[in-house]
């Protein structure tokens, strides 16, 4: 490790002077390398105008910097006392003072023009072909294809063992999810972004889309992606301890593939609805429940069910968990108001909820014994 650090350090010193900016497109290898210096150009109009104003601003600033610092270095060299110069005594000159007020102001006006037109692009959310509702949860995203009746949660797949170094980190460390957002290529997609609990921010650099997910209000953004593929983004507003662990993955498909996928999703939902009445066995529920628990609950209540004292209560030994099943279902369906214990009614299926409840009631030191079935959860929901 130390050796690598040293090598890096040396190469970085030599690099600083030589690498030119604009080395985007480099495939980030392990470690990312030191050539990954600039903003990606991205694949949408917005990301490209953002890139263009970024470069423009950078070059203007560089030019001003060269002039200003160039003059300064000259002064520092030429007017050293050690060269035997005598200090002059002037301290005012109206002409130059006006000049260096007016010239920067003109430069700024020049900058403001492209900056304005770029911003107008960003705000051009009208006339979209389809709408996606994006909801930030602690710490995952929910996507809803408005008008299609399809919604799903998207959670990080990287395991805690990789994060804590008990397993080697995979190639897509922190950049992989169980279910990416799927959108069609070359369609104007409007994202309506909101939050469920705290503020998150939905950022896909390649789309030039970054919008805060404010609970209770929508913000809008749009993208027309020109190339199919997988695009990765991140949550960029501090949202609690899981903030680095709620990546965004968007899969952009050709239109036909997208439609196929959509149809598949709908079929899946129909199939699910027809099987919900089935009686599940203890073992089935336990294994499903453990999976759900690990993904959805362990982040707060911890894998051992003991929580974190003062913030997240222990479920191991909790009276709610061990109490009547209905009380427990209620907590999951309604959440606990005013706390980060959110409602899972929209996030998890009835099967998942039943499974995780059953699991918690029969693991660690808890042993209630009875079986909670998906149909019980459904009944609870409809009774409300």
């Amino acid at each position, binding site marked *: 490790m130390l050796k690598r650090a040293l090598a890096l350090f040396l190469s970085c010193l030599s690099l600083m002077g030589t690498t030119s900016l604009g080395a985007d497109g480099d495939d980030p290898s392990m470690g990312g390398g030191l050539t990954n210096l600039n903003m990606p150009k991205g694949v949408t109009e917005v990301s490209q105008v953002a890139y263009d104003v970024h470069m423009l601003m950078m070059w203007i600033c560089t030019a001003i910097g060269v002039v200003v610092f160039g003059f300064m270095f000259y002064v520092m060299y030429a007017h050293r006392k050690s060269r035997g110069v005598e200090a002059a005594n002037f301290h005012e000159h109206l002409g130059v003072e006006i000049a260096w007020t007016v010239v920067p102001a003109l430069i700024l006006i020049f900058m403001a023009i492209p900056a304005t037109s770029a911003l107008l692009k960003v705000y051009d*959310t009208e006339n979209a072909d389809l709408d996606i*509702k994006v909801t930030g949860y602690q710490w995952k995203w929910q996507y809803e294809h408005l008008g299609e009746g399809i919604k799903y949660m998207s959670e990080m797949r990287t395991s805690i063992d990789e994060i804590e170094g008990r397993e080697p980190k995979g190639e897509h460390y922190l950049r992989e999810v169980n279910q990416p957002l799927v959108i069609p290529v070359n369609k104007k997609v409007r994202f*309506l972004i909101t939050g469920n609990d705290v503020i998150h921010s939905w950022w896909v650099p390649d789309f030039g889309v970054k919008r805060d997910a404010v609970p*209770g*209000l*929508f913000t809008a953004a749009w993208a027309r992606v020109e190339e199919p593929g997988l695009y990765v983004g991140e949550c960029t507003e501090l949202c609690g301890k899981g903030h680095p662990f709620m990546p965004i993955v968007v899969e952009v498909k050709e239109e036909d593939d997208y439609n196929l996928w959509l149809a598949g999703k709908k079929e899946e939902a129909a199939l699910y609805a027809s099987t919900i009445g089935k009686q599940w066995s203890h073992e089935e529920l336990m294994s499903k429940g453990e999976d759900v628990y690990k993904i959805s609950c362990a982040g707060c209540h911890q894998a051992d069910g003991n929580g974190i004292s003062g913030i997240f209560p222990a479920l191991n030994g909790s009276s709610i968990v061990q109490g009547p099943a209905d009380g427990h279902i209620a907590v999951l369906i309604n959440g606990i108001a005013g706390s980060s214990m959110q409602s899972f009614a929209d996030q998890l299926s009835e099967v998942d909820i039943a499974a995780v409840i059953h699991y918690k009631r029969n693991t660690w030191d808890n042993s209630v014994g009875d079986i909670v079935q998906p149909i019980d959860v459904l009944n609870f929901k409809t009774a409300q």
Partner: protein
Amino acid sequence: MSEEKYYVPEQSALPIFCATAMGVMAFGAASWVIEGGDAKIFLVGLALMTIVMYKWWSLVIEENMQGLASPQLKHSYVLGMLWFIFSEVMFFAAFFGALFYVRVFVNAWIGGEASVVLFDNTPTDAATANNDILWPGYERQWPVMETPDQAVNGEEAIFKGPDKNMSLPLWEYPASQWFSKLYTLLPWLPLWNTVILLSSSVTVHFAHTALKEGNRNVFLRYLGITVMLGFFFLCLQVAEYYEAYVHYGLTLQSGIYGTTFFMLTGFHGAHVTLGTGMLLIQLIRGLKGHFSHEDQFGFEAASWYWHFVDVVWLGLFIVVYIFG
């Protein structure tokens, strides 16, 4: 400028005790508001603070009586007081600003209207979606009688709007009926409060003039009246809060309307209390014969504060009650 020396006080134990008191009060206040906490530590801090304040003011007054306070030093006090009042203005500005923002912008967005019209006045995507998807049924309104929460969750809502609001009914009547309806204003507390506070500003000014003319009795009388008026104001405010909580269903929890209403009037009330206290102290000092017609800084400071509180009320009266 004068050649006389600026009085730089000797060492003093007061400041650090004052800081300690503030520290204890801050810590105590926090442990008090936390669930299951109590006020013990806070009260200890408050007691210490009371002692320190008493000692500190006594010391300053004593120094003043000894003639240590040169005109220049007094000018420092004047500047101190004026800038302190400015900081208070900014504190209120935060709450007025919050009210403005919520009324003009947020209310419109949640109600599905775009409030800022620049290029065209169709609601923006986000605003429409707010109303269609997140808060269906909520209509833009002020005062907010039905909160967005209520519009969506009905009886289950946590934030429920009030049954009645506190705004002045004046504008609801057509001009012709204006006069005949005027009587409805009579039992109306905020209006009385405005009258009271405005007159108290006048009386405190009379007191000041009297003091400058060296007319001690008139000074004391007007100051006394001012303190009384301040006290009346507070009584009416208490009555109004009672009314709001008990008969109007308007509480701190009634959504943003209750929030802004109580926070603005509440902080104002707290400042009236402070101002009345300050004037009361000046009255006691006056009764003890502290003020000469040249030396009246303590009183002047209190009266400036009083005028400031008065101006804030005018602002409140206009935005909270009239255009409420």
